[in-house]
């Protein structure tokens, strides 16, 4: 186990370095840069732009900028946002809660519903339920979230007036109920896609498990269908889901860009898009490293959990 962990951690470190170099280079290769936003300002002269460039250290050779950034990062300094001057870690942490709330709710919702639909679809294969679920999943996967969100707002906010038209809370309110009220529509819209994904995976995994010999054995032993399903089928079908969940961890924390835009949800997805739009290099790099670390750890944790749950796999 220890050997496995050390091995994986050293692999991860190399991976992070590679990710950071590629990210840094690509980001800097994009023409324009953080000062392009002043391009149309009639009062900003070329001297003003050149002065800012020097003050931000952007006129140095790229490799020096990279090593400067990496060296600071190793020492725990993630840099400061070009836009508001705040430390990158605090910028990220201030957007994290919003995303965690939205993604956590919708993912939990999606896993619960998706798993149930998947199992039922597999056990009642080719039934009306199964067909409806399959078609529904296709529809949910193919319709853009943006459109779903706007239709949701149009129907439930503008026409019926039941739910707010976006935002995380009413400014000046901020009670738990107010948050929950605002959470309903975006989390449903967001979980539609996830329900579709989870139900498809779960259906496949369940069908796969059902076809195994140990299920026939269990049935031959005279176990009730319910017990066969719960103990033997679902348990085995859930194993690949753990890996899927591990892979989803980074997306839970890095946010849902489209949903956050439609519902003006101040989360990580918006932060990433805005930072990219303004070429806020420190924040974009910070987000990149953050999600890379999450992806690596998500997979690592999933591997460990699978090894613990599944006696056939041993880490070495």
């Amino acid at each position, binding site marked *: 186990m220890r050997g496995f962990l050390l091995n994986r951690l050293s692999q991860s470190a190399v991976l992070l370095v590679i990710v950071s170099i590629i990210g840094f280079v690509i980001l800097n290769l994009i*023409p324009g840069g953080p000062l392009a936003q002043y391009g149309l300002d009639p009062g900003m002269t070329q*001297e*003003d732009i050149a002065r800012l460039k020097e003050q931000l250290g952007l006129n140095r050779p790229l490799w020096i900028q990279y090593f400067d950034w990496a060296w600071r990062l190793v020492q725990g300094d993630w840099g400061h946002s070009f836009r508001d001057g*705040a430390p990158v870690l605090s910028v990220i942490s*201030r957007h994290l809660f919003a995303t965690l709330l939205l993604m956590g709710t919708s993912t939990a919702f999606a896993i619960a519903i998706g798993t149930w639909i998947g199992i039922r679809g597999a056990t009642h294969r080719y039934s009306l339920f199964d067909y409806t679920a399959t078609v529904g999943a296709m529809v949910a996967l193919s319709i853009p979230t943006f459109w779903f969100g706007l239709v949701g707002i149009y129907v439930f906010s503008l026409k019926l007036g039941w739910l707010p038209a*976006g935002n995380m809370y009413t400014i000046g309110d901020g009670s738990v109920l107010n948050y929950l009220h605002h959470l309903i529509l975006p989390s449903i819209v967001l979980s539609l896609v996830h329900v579709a994904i989870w139900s498809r995976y779960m259906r496949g995994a369940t069908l796969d498990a059902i076809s195994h010999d140990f299920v026939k054995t269990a049935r031959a032993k005279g176990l009730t269908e319910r017990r066969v399903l719960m103990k033997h089928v679902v348990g085995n079908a859930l194993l690949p889901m753990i890996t899927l969940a591990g892979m989803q961890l980074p997306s839970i924390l890095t946010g849902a860009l489209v949903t956050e835009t439609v*519902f003006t949800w*101040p989360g990580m997805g918006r932060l990433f898009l805005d930072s990219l739009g303004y070429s806020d290099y420190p924040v974009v790099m910070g987000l990149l490293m953050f999600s890379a670390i999450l992806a690596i750890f998500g997979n690592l944790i999933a591997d460990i959990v699978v090894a613990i749950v599944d006696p056939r796999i041993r880490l070495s």
Partner: protein
Amino acid sequence: MTERSKIKSAYTRRDALRMMAIGGAAGLIAPNLLGRPAFAQTPPATPAGRVIVGISQEPTVFNPLMAHIEVDDGVHFSLFDALFRIAPDGSIQPNLAVEVPTQANGGISEDGLNWRIRLRDDVRWHDGEPFTAEDVKFTLELITNPDFRAWRTTGHSLVRDITVVSPTEITWRMEEVFAPYLSFLTETFIVPKHILEKDADPNAAAFNQAPIGTGAFKWGQRVPGDHVELVANPGYFGDGPYVERLIFKYIPDVTVLYTQFKSGDIDLVGQTYITPDNYEEARTLPGRVVSLVPASSVESIYLNLKRPQFKDLAVREALYAAMDRKAIIEGLYYGVPSLTETFMPRQSFYYDPDLPKQEFNLERARKILDNAGWVPGPDGIRAKDGVRLSFANSTTSGNHLREQAQQFLQQTFAEIGVEMTISNLPAAVMWGEFWSQSQFDTAMVGITYLIGADPDVTNRFHTRAIAAQGGSGSNNAQYSNPEVDALLEKGSRTFDPEARREIYFRVQELVRHDLPLLPLFANTSVYGRKEGIEGFVPNTNTRTESWKAADWYWAS
């Protein structure tokens, strides 16, 4: 009567405003002329309620002297004060100063070099400290501090020998005569010396995240990615504020911004306002006041005159004649913007209404090109001396209205034997070096030519301002006309508005003749607010709808 018909028939109003700009007595009359019953309601005795302004970009820079963009202005105007304020009619009025310096009142010396500003003695910072001339000196010096990430430094870099005569009087000398500086000072917010001098690095001062000003509103809090909240300053030296809370809510998508205006989540639509395609619906919304407000930017096909295709004036004239501007305005922009022949905003005192009118006439366009020797080649595209009349047009990708206008122009240009290809780029790429170093053939762009509403356009049209030729400025068309250069130099050294008007009329005539830009239309913003918000007056001489939120109040 709609706001639009008012604007279209506004000639008499503009004339009236012109006279007032000279007389400087516009303060009381202007709000009535803008068509709202400013005095029908009275504001509450104590600040009450709140106004949520929805904006499509996020304000992030709160030190008003640091490099920032338009959307930060609303917060700056509410938290801070400048020495002077520019009124909706373009006249400059005192704010932290007690009078506007002129050569007549001795505030500016006869030679235009020595300035003396007298300041109010009743102004306090939000923390209770008195505001003095020391703060003004500190502000002007901070802007030119080489380590400080300052915003515009034009004008400020000419200031020498700043002397604090008394707490209410300050003088300085200008390195050279620069009349536009008065306008620039209307956008130069004064910051507190006693707070900022404590920080070794002004770029990282705590002040930048929780600013302290003299303005009608105090800093409340900021929820990053969501909103900025300001609270009423009861000790404000001017009139107001009348609302308790002023909130700038960031709504990243313009469609959603409009949706939240409909649903009532926001009270007032700020930048970038309501999109033209929603105008017809918006004006019928119950409980909402929607109006058209002329903006300061002019949309044009902006040419790179160093390209061989555009060196010939005949080509520019022919292209201009081949632009069906009315069809674009009516068909694509829902009739919201208005026709213009100049870079000068219509509401400016310096706008020349008598420039030759463009006429859409393909026959004439062809004739101009025929006469100039541009003959169609085998592929139908005209050429002369080995130069094909073919060029690319670029703008920010993803702007659907502009993309449609491009396609429309592409077709009419093709009819006169001109090939226009469309090559759009993401904003950060488009407005980076591609734009500033004149690497484009032509651009479709909305440009604000004036700085702080001053008519000086040296930065845009002077030969010295061609960045691609090592100059300093944004003359990205690489336009060069010695007469324009001379006029611009004269204009920036002239203080008298009447004399300046003559100068800038001539500049407009020359630019209209030379056509470095082919104007499409003068931009118009669709403003929207809830019924019941009183005291709201647009001011397109500033870059924000929230230039004077101190006057806003809810009708009781």
